[in-house]
């Protein structure tokens, strides 16, 4: 029971980070019908912004979170304006290829960067994006854990509470944004029919930019939270969470905002479940849990391609 509950908490923690990234995928897919491959890299940049915010500028946690969200949101907007916008009326695959190129460019750029710097305390530090770097989580958050149920050995850490709290608040804010504001209405209209929206006198470019801004900011928050949870950062850290978050978005029904949240949580639970079931000795089979997400993807695409919450769309000829 204790083990089950702790694993449940771990799964939800992992899932809430996936959900934050998945929201960006699903929103961009909604408005542009594009799998934004570079979204995982935006997530990675979020973790690195957190690193420098803590060491170089000595920011506290809320400020670092805002910095990560701001930088990542602007980065996503810049990517859209520079690369995706000129390709919008080209064959759909060209945007996807450009997204792969952007992903490669960003991750390898961070990988190629290496320099020495002095942190706020005056320590000489050397930074190399290609190497695993310890994330200074102690500067941002005091680690502690609380007993969840009196008398039972089930604990929840401060970082876990932070993960749940931040992702819940952000998801609630996003829900309000999409459902209760004119901008959200424009986003939903854009997903429905871009040309008609444009005829209504709405600036479609602005709506798409805002979608990227929101999606990027969520990914940035996810990156910082992930770096706090698994305190090692490296240039390639965006690839796998990015792909899995995409799978989470497909699982919930791509283009569907609550679907992405549920899909992320489900995927996190499935992965943690697989890790706790797979034997760790004599041979460590836990890396196989990475395959669970992809197996799930192929299963979903075969059985219910529109995802859990998605509506079946008939193909127009």
């Amino acid at each position, binding site marked *: 029971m204790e083990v089950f509950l702790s694993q449940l908490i771990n799964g939800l923690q992992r899932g809430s980070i996936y959900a934050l990234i998945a929201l960006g995928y699903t929103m961009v897919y909604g408005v542009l019908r*594009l*799998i934004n491959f570079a979204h995982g890299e935006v997530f990675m940049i979020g973790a690195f912004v957190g690193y420098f915010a803590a060491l170089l500028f000595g920011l506290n946690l809320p400020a670092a979170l805002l910095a990560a969200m701001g930088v990542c949101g602007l980065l996503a907007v810049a990517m859209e304006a520079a*690369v995706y916008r*000129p*390709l919008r009326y*080209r064959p*759909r*695959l*060209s945007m*996807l*290829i*450009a997204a*792969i*190129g*952007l*992903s*490669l*460019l*960003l*991750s*390898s*750029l961070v*990988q*190629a960067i290496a320099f020495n710097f002095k942190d706020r305390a005056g320590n000489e530090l050397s930074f190399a994006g*290609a190497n695993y770097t310890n994330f200074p989580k102690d500067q941002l958050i005091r680690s502690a854990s609380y007993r969840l149920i009196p008398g039972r050995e089930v604990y929840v850490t401060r970082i876990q509470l932070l993960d749940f709290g931040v992702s819940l608040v952000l998801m609630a804010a996003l829900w309000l944004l999409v459902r209760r504001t004119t901008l959200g209405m424009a986003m939903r209209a854009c997903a429905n029919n871009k040309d008609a929206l444009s005829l209504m006198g709405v600036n479609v470019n602005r709506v798409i930019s805002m979608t990227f801004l929101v999606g990027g900011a969520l990914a940035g928050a996810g990156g910082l939270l992930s770096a706090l949870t698994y305190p090692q950062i490296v240039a390639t850290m965006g*690839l796998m969470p990015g*792909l899995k978050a*995409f*799978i989470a978005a*497909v699982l919930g029904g791509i283009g569907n905002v609550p679907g992405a949240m549920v899909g992320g949580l489900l995927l996190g639970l499935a992965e943690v479940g697989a890790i706790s079931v797979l034997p760790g000795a004599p*041979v460590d*089979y836990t*890396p*196989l849990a*990475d*395959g669970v*997400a*992809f*197996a799930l*993807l*192929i299963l979903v*695409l*075969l059985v219910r*391609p529109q995802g859990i919450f998605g509506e079946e769309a008939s*193909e127009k*000829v």
Partner: protein
Amino acid sequence: MEFQLSDLLHFWPIALGLGLMLLPVRWRWWGAAIVVILLAAATLGLGSKEWFGLDSPWVNPYTVRIEAFICITAIMAVSLNLINGITGLFSIGHAGFMVVGAYTAGIMTSLLFRLTGETGLGLALPAFLLSLLAGGLAAAALGFLVGLPTLRLRGDYLAIATLGFGEIIGVLLKFITFHREEYGQVREIGGPRAIDGIPAMPGPMLPGIDARDMPILMGFVFSILLLACVVWAVRNFAFSSHGRACGAIREDEVAAEILGVDTVFYKVAAFVMGAFFAGVGGGLLAHWSNMVHPSMGGFLKSIEFLIIVYIGGIGSISGSILAAVVLTTLWELLAMLIHGADAWRMVIYGAILIAVILWRPKGLYGGREFRWLVPRGRTIDDGR
């Protein structure tokens, strides 16, 4: 080692090959002639010190090694082009097929047949070719298994599914281990580490060529001959009625189906063929680098091939070959010129890919083919 301008002269065989390919020759045997000329150039180059008393820049085993690598890369690019360009299936897990072929062929020659440098040619040659074939077949079988369910998907979903497949292969390969006796003690190989000690490609001894250079030469011989076979097969497929069916699927799948094209059959066929050639290419790569590693099947490797296909021009066999030659050579030159350039390689690749998509969507050679690749009486602007 200090770079000197005269080092550029070492690349003469590559420049020769590039020039020969680009000549507007109509002669249908010109492809075979290029292979013969390049093989002769490599052999004469390696033996020139002994036979003619010539010295650098003619003698350079390193260039021959690079040439072999270019041919293997071209095999991968052409086979990916069959899937992505000619049939229009956006697959980004191509390195997954390559690594399966590499593992199958490498394990067969090193652990099953136990080939070494001393094995006689009578055993080594058939064993090697059999292993390459087995590697190709293993990759093709896997392509069939993956293709049958996933090819129902379109466009971007197919991309994710193939990508996921490539990653799963990489994970699974980390669990394959073997035990091999070396110097009297049993050692575990494979797993997350590489399988090393895969023998070089077998070949005879030629008087006048250094015994160390001979495997390098044979690597080039096998690679270019197999590249010629792959190009010949893909070109004949592309210009056949089957190729037209695939082209129809690429242009509009629904319309193709209405016109009576068996879309599922052709999609699976193209996918399996591409996987087979990729497996053969992987087998060659394993024996070229004398090792296999699970990460060879990863995302980055697949993207590299994708970039070559797109830079060359999607759908153009010639473009894929051309881009494989140009990019690989360019890369070797950069590595010679700039120390530590390796970190920037993928940055440059990413930037080039974006630039090509934005400003030159047809690639370097899109919509064109080398003259000698086009069958008589055919043009290539008819949608093939």
